């Protein structure tokens, strides 16, 4: 059986920590209007024009990388059943992601559209993680009976 493109198991932990840290940062940044006093990652443009504040960009990057690490971390027991569960989870994630995207397409406009589509990109990975762990939980429960 070919092993898929998976990270070592400890990335599950690292991923969760990264995700939560950057999630807090991201929420805090959004609440403070993208400017946290005393903590901003600046990328200055030409002199005379406004400074670029990259804090929220880094929060987004951190969240995505954290979620990716969780998604692609190897399970303790990687066998063919888990491969099947992974495949089904990804299928669910993709479909739900696109359904939401189409709903967003017709219900938001302008800046609101950009905002919600950005958050929708998390949906793909979140649905995968939730569905994958749910399937594993149901399998474990089937064992206990």
């Amino acid at each position, binding site marked *: 059986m070919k092993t898929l493109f998976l990270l070592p198991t400890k990335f599950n932990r690292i991923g969760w920590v990264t995700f939560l840290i950057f999630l807090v940062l991201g929420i805090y940044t959004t609440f403070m209007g993208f400017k946290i006093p005393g903590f901003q990652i600046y990328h200055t443009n030409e002199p005379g024009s406004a400074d670029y504040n990259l804090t929220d960009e880094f929060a987004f990057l951190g969240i995505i990388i954290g979620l990716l690490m969780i998604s692609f971390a190897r399970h303790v027991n990687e066998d063919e*059943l888990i491969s099947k569960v992974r495949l089904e989870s990804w299928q669910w994630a993709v479909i739900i992601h696109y359904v939401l995207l189409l709903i967003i397409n017709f219900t938001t406009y302008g800046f609101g559209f950009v905002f919600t589509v950005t958050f929708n990109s998390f949906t793909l990975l979140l649905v995968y993680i939730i569905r994958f762990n749910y399937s594993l939980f149901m399998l474990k429960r089937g*064992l206990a009976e």
Partner: protein
Amino acid sequence: MNITQAELANLIKVSRQTINSIEAGKYVPSTVLALKLAKLFAKPVEEIFDLEDED
């Protein structure tokens, strides 16, 4: 041959959930796994698995 699901899973290097799902009929194992099972029980594959009517 009397072994538990956990021991069987350990012998063929799969998880207990896999063995349980195969027994419950919820999962069809790959050919490699089916052959490993057959070899372990020293029986031909057809005695352990058979085709359903839908297949």
